[in-house]
């Protein structure tokens, strides 16, 4: 898909069902973010989500490129990643309300979604800390002789963290099946990439570790899907790790309630032109892949799913106070004494 919404006829694209699903999770991420922010503003949620806006195409591409047995580690900006693993929005939102129906029984909260069955192994609130763990998951897959790949998603700012670089080196040294997916939205909270990195070309920096490393237009879900698909196939077949820098832009504040008046207007306006979901819609329709009627149907389904998810979450009971001491240790007993 080019900037004008065209894709080269010769280039591979996912199946029609997959394309529809991609479009729907892009919309669902946006709907979830927006509703959560509104709920937080009303004081009904203790914290807003960290919006995915701008990254939806990357998340959707991951959803199709990753296989069922692949595993993922994500961050606090995890809604799109979680949806890409097929995790129902209702359990994600229930977690945001701190309810028993959430992915982590309300104990983790918005930053800590877990769904091992669907391969979302952990999501971390500590910037950059997912990368070393992805090395370990990659090691486990390699030792198992399994054909699964590991994806770790993280922001551009996370590449400042020292242990990220330790992880790049180790993954390359041990030839591990890890795909490092950098969701470069050009910002780490209030600081733009250009003012925190002397060399802002992250893929170039990582290439020096001796692993495949490339930039891709993260606003282009098809190009992103092709790149990730290749990197994942390579990882699964013993070809080693890759770093994929998905270039996008943060279309909102850092969190759903944050002020972002500091973002230069012209930059934001240019990025909004590339807003992935509407562009994908235009392309799906103009290329004849999905007709207007079906697109409208998907949009209505997304709204219904979002409504249902919030209703489910609000009705889900809170954890009983006694559950505080559960899940600290395997035995479930009230440690530290026996």
């Amino acid at each position: 898909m080019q900037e004008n919404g065209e894709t080269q006829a010769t280039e591979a694209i996912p199946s029609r069902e997959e394309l529809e699903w991609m479009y729907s999770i892009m919309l669902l991420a946006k709907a979830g973010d927006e509703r959560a922010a509104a709920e937080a503003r009303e004081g009904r949620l203790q914290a807003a989500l960290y919006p995915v806006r701008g990254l939806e195409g990357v998340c959707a591409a991951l959803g199709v490129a990753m296989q069922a047995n692949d595993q993922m580690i994500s961050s606090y900006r995890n809604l799109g990643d979680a949806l890409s693993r097929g995790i129902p929005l209702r359990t994600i939102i229930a977690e945001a309300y701190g309810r028993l129906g959430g992915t982590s029984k309300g104990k983790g909260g918005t930053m800590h979604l877990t769904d091992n069955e669907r391969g979302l192994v952990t999501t971390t609130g500590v910037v950059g800390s997912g990368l070393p763990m992805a090395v370990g998951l990659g090691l486990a897959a390699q030792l198992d002789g399994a054909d699964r790949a590991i994806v770790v998603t993280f922001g551009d700012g996370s590449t400042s963290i020292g242990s990220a670089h330790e992880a790049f080196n180790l993954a390359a040294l041990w030839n591990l099946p890890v795909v490092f997916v950098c969701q470069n939205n050009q910002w780490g909270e209030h600081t733009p990439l250009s003012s925190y990195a002397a060399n802002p070309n992250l893929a170039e920096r990582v290439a020096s570790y001796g692993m495949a490393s490339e930039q891709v237009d993260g606003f282009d879900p098809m190009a992103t899907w092709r790149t990730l698909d290749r990197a994942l196939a390579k990882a699964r077949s013993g070809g080693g790790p890759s770093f994929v820098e998905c270039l996008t832009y943060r279309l909102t504040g850092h969190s759903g309630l944050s002020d972002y008046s500091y973002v230069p207007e012209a930059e934001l306006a240019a990025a909004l032109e590339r807003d992935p979901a509407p562009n994908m819609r235009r392309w799906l329709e103009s290329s004849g892949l999905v007709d207007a009627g079906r697109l409208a149907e998907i949009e209505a389904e997304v709204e219904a799913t979002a409504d249902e998810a919030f209703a489910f979450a609000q009705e889900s009971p809170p954890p009983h106070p006694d559950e505080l001491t559960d899940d600290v240790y395997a035995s479930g007993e009230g440690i530290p004494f026996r």
Partner: protein
Amino acid sequence: MSEEQTEKMTIVAALNSALDVALGLDERVIMMGEDIADPIGGVMKATKGLSTKYGEDRVRATPIVEQTIVGSAVGAAMGGYRPVAEIMFMDFLCQAMDQIINHAAKSRFMSGGHTTVPLVVRAMVGSSNFGAQHSQALEAWFMHTPGLKVVMPSNPYDTKGLLLSSIFDDDPVIFIENMAMSYSVPGMVPTGDYRIPLGEAAVLQEGEDVTVITYGAEVHTVMAAAESLVDEMSVEVIDLRTLVPLDLTTCLESVTKTRRAIVVHGSTQFCGPGAEIATLITDELFGALDVPVARLGGTYTPIAFAKELESLPTEDKVVAALRELVERPSVARQR
């Protein structure tokens, strides 16, 4: 600059005022941290205006590099500066532990006294609103590390006076703030320079029946509990203000009088500061106590996101603990 001129300040404003005074007094005071430069001036706005006033050479925004924020502060301190490093959430001090524990804390000792690391690391206890990785109170780790000083103020006046003392102290200081108090407990604060010595507790309220020893955000929980028990018992409340050095003298004087004491804090009770403080009191006053020194700290769990799963001492828990403590028959009398 005189102590007479005061202004109503939040804790964040008091931090800002202390940093402003320090930067103005001594050009060797420098700051580093994520997003601390203007226009944002820190995610909690504690450094707002300072990079504009003193220059980005001295008030430096860094990438997300906790280990090197603290490490470079250690190095700059060795190089003759008085750095103040800002780490947003205390949980992220984990990233910088090597620099704090293996270097900042021990350099004087390992060098036979030749090296001085006059460093302040500011960090804040977060909130369960953000889950288990943004809410820990980890002061016990630092108390357990010889070479560090540990400061945990509860109000704007102490915040400013203690921060200024910390900055001009020749030892590394871990200065711990609390997100919940950042804007919620305003108080009158001198606009100029004043210092509160490290290691002097404050007796916030005198009482006869029981002593509560606490610090940081729990001071407010304890004061509210004491207020609600005013018809039932007379509570003496001690705000330690600094944990290292620890003002044991003030604690012992108080407990000698009341013969009953409890230590209340937000960090995990097991192996928490209360364990040490209770033991120190018992060591000195064993025969004079009516009942063993009690503790009320966080449950032995990570901090949960759901509000129903409360691990910290709440006002209700403090009230219950105080009633139990005061109603307990005296061990001394049983003997």
